[in-house]
């Protein structure tokens, strides 16, 4: 478990598979080995009007933590994160009378997973309700848990294979948590941030 940086890769008028292909070529050239696939998915539930003030629950799964279900409850004022075991999915099904899921917002990011030394790189194709939206690159540096201590290293590594489109500043979510210990829920926060952006953006309309 280390620090993870999630960044969007500009598509530059290329389709999703082309982007992934280019990136995997670059990362393989650096000496990485592919270690299976990964999948992060997100489903959003909203409370029914009878419950009063509307709240939103995002339920996310990360294949890196297969035994865990992450959920983020947005109450307007603040966001409450929760890491639970797999039974939480069943609980959400029981609560379908109070929290209804929006099918068209089901988003996921999946693709190949590479390991290169202490880094773990995941190239994800993002789809929102099975429409292609973009490419997300996740890089994890495993020996360190404090973002401030390895941000520069990560930035350099990202720029090494993303080129100029690599990030120059830490993700907004991490910016005021740079000195704290990084935990898997922080990765989930970053994914949710990106998923919400993709949902709001107009559909590119290209099938992956």
């Amino acid at each position, binding site marked *: 478990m280390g620090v993870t940086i999630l960044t969007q890769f500009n598509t530059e008028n290329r389709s999703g598979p082309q982007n992934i292909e280019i990136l995997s070529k670059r990362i393989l050239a650096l000496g990485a080995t592919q270690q299976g696939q990964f999948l992060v998915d997100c489903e959003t539930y909203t409370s029914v009007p009878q419950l009063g003030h509307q709240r939103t629950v995002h339920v996310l799964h990360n294949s890196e*933590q297969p035994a865990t279900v992450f959920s983020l409850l947005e109450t307007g004022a603040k966001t409450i994160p929760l890491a639970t075991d797999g*039974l939480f999915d069943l609980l959400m099904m029981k609560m379908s009378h109070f929290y209804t899921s929006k099918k068209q917002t089901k988003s996921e990011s999946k693709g190949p997973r590479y390991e290169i030394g202490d880094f773990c790189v995941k190239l994800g194709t993002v789809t929102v309700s099975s429409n292609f939206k973009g490419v997300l690159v996740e890089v994890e540096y495993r020996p360190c848990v404090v973002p401030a201590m390895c941000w520069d290293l990560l930035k350099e590594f990202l720029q090494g294979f993303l080129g100029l489109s690599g990030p120059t500043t830490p993700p907004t979510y991490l910016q005021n948590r740079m000195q704290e210990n990084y935990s*898997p829920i922080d990765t989930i926060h970053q994914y949710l941030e990106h998923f919400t952006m993709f949902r709001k953006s107009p559909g590119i309309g290209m099938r992956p």
Partner: protein
Amino acid sequence: MSYSVNISVEATIENQIQEIQYDGTEIYQPPLTLSESLAKYAQKIDFSKTSEVDIKKEESSEDSKSDTDSKDAFQSSIWPWDSVRTKLRSSLQEICVLADVLAIAKEKRYLVLDPVQQEPLETKPMVQIYARKKALGGAANVLLAGAEKMKNSQTEAARNRTTLDFHIELLRLRQNWRLKKVSNTIIGDLSYRTTGSKYLQTGTFEVTKAEDEEKPSSPPSSPLPGGPIPSKPNSALRVSIPTELQGVAYIEVLCQKDQEDLCSVNLNLMGTAPPPSNPDMHWQQKLEAAQNVLFCKELFNQLAKEAVQLQAPIPHMVVGNQIMATVLPGIQLIIGLRHSTSGDKKQQTPPPSKSDHDHVLEHSLHQLLREVHHKNTHHPFPHPATGPLGPSKKRMLAGPLAADRHELLEMTKTQTLLEQIVQQAQHFIMRMRTEYVLDTIAKEVKDPLISSHWNTLNSPTHSCVKIHISTHGYDAVCRTPLIIHVGEKSLKCICRDGKVMNMSYEPQELRDLIFCHISQHQIVAVQALAKTMGWQALGNSNHLGTGAVEPLGNSSSCLLSSPTGDRIIAVRCEPQAGPQVSVAHSPRTDFFPSRLVTERKWEHLGGQFRDVRLDKMEGRNFLHKMELLMASLTSNS
């Protein structure tokens, strides 16, 4: 009659007082009405008495009549049922009258039945309580006396009885074993299933009542090998155990080096000497033996299953009732199930093992299966109400703590019984080898003394020994501590300076390490001694680069100079050859000018070293000799 005066007796006009109020006014009961008083008086008449009188009158008249014609009525008067007949007759009359009265009263035209107010009985609560108390006390006394009598007779009977009652025996059996009644037989269960065992073999036994006629005949008749064994004569119970659970079983653990035994352990649950399964054994011992057989079978079955499944670099072998596993190169662990049935007990009894028992290994193999049983029944708390039972506590927390894939994979790894016992055997061998090496070095090397302290507390796969290297008589001057952690397949030595040395299972490596430390100890000790003598240490090196190449390790050396600085001692210590000492004088006491050294002042630069023949010197050990040497060199100046 004419003189008689009529006295009228009347009730007082005043009515009965019902209540006196607080202001003194009295409230009277309302006077009875005419009909009420009539009813009251009529109630006081005892009609039965009058009727009896009437009957008597009738009888007497009848008697007188019968007396007159006694002769002809003789037959009737002596009829035995006469009184009964008359009584029945009078009662019939009464019933008839009652029926008539009831019939008339039902009409309500001629007769009306009014409820009559009963005069309230005067009750005093305290009197009632005393009466009841007395009555209850009496009853209690009777009961207590009866109980006492019964108890006395019971104890008397128990004291006198020689053979135990079947039911008492059954009760005892029931207290320790699981029994149930199936139709007309009593079936017991001695398997470990209630404590978490998942072994398939059933351990049922049957309990029957011992027949009385068998008792006298049992000593002469030889017991049948397979049949039911007659119980002890004074036991009223007979326990029949299935043939596969009869006899004595134990698990034999042997560590073999090639073909020669390194250690042998006889494991059985009932102590070192299994009691012979003679037919007259008490049922408790018989059941315990059978349960032991079942346990050993389960243990062996489990081990054999694992031995077949495990993918070891050198595959485990299962032949018959023996499992062979390679522990360390050249050393095999042999686990065997020995089961001797009662019939051919004498022939199969193995000779008592040559080496003494290792109770630790004996205990741990036993413990491992118990642990498995315990885990099957005891699930870690807290259980979620909706979650599955069975996963470990760590696995339960994995979800909320967001464990990643690697951690989850680690959790799935479990050690089988065989792996654990192999590890313990490896550790056992490692410990034995380390002990042997340390003991032989301590025996061989006399000059620095080597003492080893084994920690009394250790785990089955890890133990620790502390070694002190010191010189006799100088242990306050210098001592070199070493700590050796003995693991399963490796040794870890923590040296005096904090260096950690990892060694393999080969005992030679430890031996070499100790010898290196002995030579270093000598050099350090000489310097410490020199300090107390006022000598100065000019320099030292633990790994000397000069001189002949050592077969093992490096030689170490030091240079010492006397307090006045005119004498120098050089000490060189090699792990194999031991210490060498040389002495140099500067300036020399005598000076002969030569062509090269023309003046005396050059002699201050230091002279030639001359070897000291230590073996010719006085002194108990090396340090003692060095002390004498330094003392003599100091006094000379």
